[in-house]
């Protein structure tokens, strides 16, 4: 480290009058050190985590196979595969997307295109941030109070009066999807609003000048130009909905739900009024509540969930990079 410097050597001072002094060299070294230190912080976050993830995947290897994904869990998840939780998570994601996407996108359109800057907009902004900060377990309590105890009797009353079903709906896909949807509302509002805000004002002005109404402008100019940004937000919601555990704890997810092993019922296993299995819930239970659970099954479930989430997020990131590369303004 201690290479002879210009200042310490006897003669070259005359040769190079601009050579850094000892003070400057010390400062330069401190700067380099600090750069490395902050880089070290980044690596300290990333490298151990990657090591852990690789460890999980290695320990999961004995369990992983295509059958593992395609077969239903048996004997409390000690044997068999992951099909029932996977399909449950799939329907949970679909259900919550059906609710949250239209509402969230329309809300973002309102905030970005219609609302004037005033107390109402500010209030909505604050509620979006507070909603985003509500802990997931409080969302679970809300789902229990509002959807399971409040909405479900109403739905059941309606279903019974129409005579379409003979069995009352319980807490299940419907209530869990609604809870997850409320939880993801601020996410999609924020991301869509950002995407809409990225469309230059000149685009809108040009369209208005052609005589288009505000709605026509939104439909033909603003939305097509922000579509990919909105899509990125939706994918983000998919990944969050797939990974959440707390909000579905009391609102419909269950640990054991037998579904058909073959036939069409394997793809469409239950009605929205039945409890369902989900990946996150499955991992929660098998990782610490079932005794004598084989290690490979625990790690296998974790590895599949991690892979699922990372894959969804990589799609979102790839989409964004691609979008930025072809942006024309």
């Amino acid at each position: 480290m201690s290479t002879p410097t210009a200042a310490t050597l006897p003669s070259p001072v005359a040769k190079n009058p601009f050579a850094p002094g000892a003070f400057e060299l010390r400062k330069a070294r401190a700067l380099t050190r600090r750069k490395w230190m902050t880089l070290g912080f980044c690596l300290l976050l990333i490298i151990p985590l990657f090591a852990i993830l690789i460890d999980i995947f290695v320990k999961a290897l004995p369990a992983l196979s295509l059958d593992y994904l395609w077969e239903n869990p048996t004997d409390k998840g000690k044997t068999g595969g992951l099909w029932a939780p996977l399909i449950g998570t799939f329907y949970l994601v679909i259900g919550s997307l059906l609710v949250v996407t239209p509402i969230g996108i329309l809300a973002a359109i309102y905030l970005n295109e219609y609302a004037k800057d005033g107390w109402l907009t500010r209030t909505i902004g604050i509620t979006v941030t507070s909603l985003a900060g509500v802990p997931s377990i409080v969302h679970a309590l809300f789902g229990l109070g509002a959807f399971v105890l409040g909405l479900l009797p109403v739905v059941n009353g309606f279903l019974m009066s129409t005579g379409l079903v003979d069995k009352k709906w319980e807490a299940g896909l419907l209530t869990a999807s609604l809870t997850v949807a409320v939880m993801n509302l601020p996410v999609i509002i924020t991301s869509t609003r950002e995407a809409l805000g990225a469309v230059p004002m000149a685009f809108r002005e040009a369209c208005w000048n052609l005589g288009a109404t505000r709605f026509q402008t939104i439909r033909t100019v603003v939305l097509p130009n922000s579509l990919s940004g909105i899509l990125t937000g939706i994918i983000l919601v998919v990944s969050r909905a797939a990974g959440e555990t707390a909000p579905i704890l009391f609102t419909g997810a269950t640990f054991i739900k037998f579904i058909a092993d073959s036939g069409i019922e394997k793809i469409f296993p239950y009605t929205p009024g039945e409890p369902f299995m989900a990946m996150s819930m499955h991992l929660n239970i098998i990782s610490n509540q079932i005794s004598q659970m084989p290690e490979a099954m625990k790690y296998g479930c974790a590895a599949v969930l991690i892979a699922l989430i990372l894959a969804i997020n990589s799609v979102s990131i790839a989409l964004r990079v691609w979008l930025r590369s072809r942006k024309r303004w």
Partner: protein
Amino acid sequence: MSDTVDAGGPVTKHPAAMPPPPVKRRKFRFFDAIEKPTEWLIRLCGWSSIIGIVAIFFFIFKEAMPIVPRLDWKEFFTSSRWIPAPGAGNPAHFGALALIVGTFATTAIALLIAVPLGLGAAVYISEFSSGKMKETLKVVIELLAAIPSIVWGFIGLMVLGPVLQKFTGATQPTNLLTGGIILALMSVPIIVSLGEDALRAVPDSYREASLALGANPWETVRRVLFPAARNGLLAACLLGMGRAIGETMAVLLATGHSNRIPEAFTDPIRTMTATIAAEMGEAAQHSDHYCMLFVLGIVLLLITCATNVAADLIIKGVRKKGKA
């Protein structure tokens, strides 16, 4: 017949001499027809977040209400006797002190680790890196933020806990320290990405002025960027704290689940969120125990809302100053 104009024939006349086109009835267009209803729908959806937050407060308070008038608040905040479902004849005790201490202890450890790490990483990403390196780091940090909390809990329980146990000699792998480290790792991505936003929002002219005065990049960061981005960085830390307080699944798996006030880093503890998650399944509907879990929910809700609104106001304050 010869004097009728053959409208379908080839146009031979000068266009100006052509008869004007017949006034047609305006064609029915689907999107024009739904314009007004859709605009109303958009306005209605704009209110959705207000409706959401009001509904959350309403239902949580509604479910907690039966016990609130009877609740011994002094016991709630000062005792750590949490005996929600005693045997027949014994009174129930709802002292949440240990749970509250548990929540704040894990959060404090998480912040002690996450704030320096997160701000350091934000400085590196924003100031010292460029090009591919910067993009890669940002993407990786974003992927870190995407890992679900249950997976973090699993990591704490199965991987990190046993490793830490070897170093600290704790009695069990899941304890305060494990939970705190896991929470730190979970809140770091928020602090990094928001902190990086805050640093990037400082105008380049500040950096240039500082460098022109002879300060090196590190001095610029410390003496110019940190003060200029102070509010944004503070908000980033507050939001990271909000996440740490509200986190459920990770602390449920990784803190050891023991209702007592911790005396050492290696003591197992229990947080408010974990208590709700663990006990709601056993609590009979509308029993005192059930209502108490909603009271814990109210406490959590109030703390996190206050944190988030404070962070929001701090950021807004920055923007207003920036405009002036």
